[in-house]
């Protein structure tokens, strides 16, 4: 088996006297989609910052193999640059202009924004901007995608639409993905593995595999069952006597 592209090995993180992470270990396989859920303020974003090497652990080690891109929680498209210029940021290492343009055109087609290359972010809807953010992070030679609650600012229906959109894009451009979210439905629908973190200091409390081909429907019984399991784990639903999926 190949080495895991992302390995967190016995990591602890302290901010001053506050312990944010305590002995967290995690290994993510190539092409795997891992969702991380947990109570707010438990250090989910810290985990992403560790994985992207933006933050060094106080002890333990984080190893990554492959180029990492991150999509942030808040609008992070540069508002003074057009859709084209923003997406091209993801292709800065490709020197050949015709190659760049070809990739750009393909990406605009994939996110269905062909006519919007010269628009500025403020001229797009929230969902369209989110698609451009994903495009910028997915374009070019990258292996790992980190998502920090990327759809949290969208309304419910747009969020479901964007999930489907993301799943579809990942079919075309497979990546190793770590998604941090507070939306348990989102985690269960998208991920191969859902990791539940505990309250601060965060530890891996439990993890659930979702053995189902991606992309999936939100109401697929296995997705619903995973939502139930995670909610029970977090003490937000009671254990049922009868399992949801027989």
């Amino acid at each position: 088996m190949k080495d895991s592209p992302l390995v967190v090995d016995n990591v602890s993180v302290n901010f001053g006297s506050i312990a944010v992470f305590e002995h967290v270990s995690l290994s993510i396989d190539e092409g795997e989609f891992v969702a991380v859920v947990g109570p707010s303020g438990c250090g989910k974003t810290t985990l992403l910052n560790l994985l992207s090497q933006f933050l060094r652990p106080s002890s333990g080690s984080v190893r990554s193999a492959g180029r990492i891109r991150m999509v942030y929680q808040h609008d992070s498209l540069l508002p003074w640059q057009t859709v084209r210029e923003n997406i091209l940021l993801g292709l800065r290492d490709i020197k050949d202009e015709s190659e760049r343009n070809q990739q750009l055109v393909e990406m605009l087609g994939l996110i269905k924004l062909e006519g919007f290359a010269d628009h500025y972010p403020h001229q797009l809807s929230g969902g369209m901007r989110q698609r451009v953010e994903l495009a910028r992070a997915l374009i070019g030679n990258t292996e790992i995608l980190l998502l920090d609650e990327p759809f949290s600012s969208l309304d419910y229906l747009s969020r479901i639409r964007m999930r489907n959109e993301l799943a579809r894009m990942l079919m075309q451009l497979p990546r190793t993905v770590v998604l941090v979210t507070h939306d348990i439905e989102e985690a269960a629908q998208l991920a191969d593995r859902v990791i539940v973190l505990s309250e601060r200091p965060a530890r891996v409390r439990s993890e659930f595999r979702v053995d189902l081909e991606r992309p999936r429907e939100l109401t697929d019984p296995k997705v619903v069952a995973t939502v139930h399991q995670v909610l029970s784990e977090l003490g937000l639903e009671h254990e049922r006597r009868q399992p949801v999926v027989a």
Partner: protein
Amino acid sequence: MVSEKPVSSKERILPLVVLLVAVLIWMAVSALRIFPESVFPSPLDVANGFVEELRAGRLWDDVVASLFRVTTGFALAAFTGIPVGLWLGHHARTRTAFLPLINFFRSLSPLAWIPFAILWFGVGDLPTVFLIFMASFFPLVLATVAAVENIPSVYFRIAHDYGFNTLETLTRVTLPAIAPQVITALRVTAGLAWLVVVAAEMIAGHAGLGFAIWDARNGLRMDLLVCGMIVIGVIGIVIDRILFQLTKIPSIRWGYER
């Protein structure tokens, strides 16, 4: 999706209507002789004075003199104030050290400097340029500092993630991010500079629109005084309109939307 507020041709006429009404009131007040004619010139007197000044070429010379001083002082302030603001905006400790002093000078009316301006630089262009500089520099520094502080940190994360070097971070993140706020500050300070030039020329000038007003007052030519006032006001509007055009640049418009 592009929020464009279309101004109908009807709405365009509205300011002209207001202007016309204002002139009519002016005419009425001067016709009623509420004030003596010598201290309340009629629009016609002013128009005549305007033609007289134009023929003599004095008005043109005064406009050029004032514009030259404002442009020089303002440009000096912009080319030094914005970089200083950038620097302070990025260095928290230096900012803490310098901000009270800058705020002190910002609160000081530039006119308080007039005696020193004359003593140090004599009479002519230099003292006025100095006063305009003093009027614009400090507000520009403060506005730039505030703009830099307001840049969402996520943009610097993006610059880091996509491999921007220091120069690229400056030209592709910091400068475009502060541009809308800095342009607004430039508009405000340009207005301030234009206010100051008139006041400064009254005292430290031997030409310029401020001097013209002072000269008219000394010669009891109230018609020429009003003529100078109108020219000053119109040029003030023109300067602001010119700077306003900057806000329409596509890569800057985002700062004024929403």
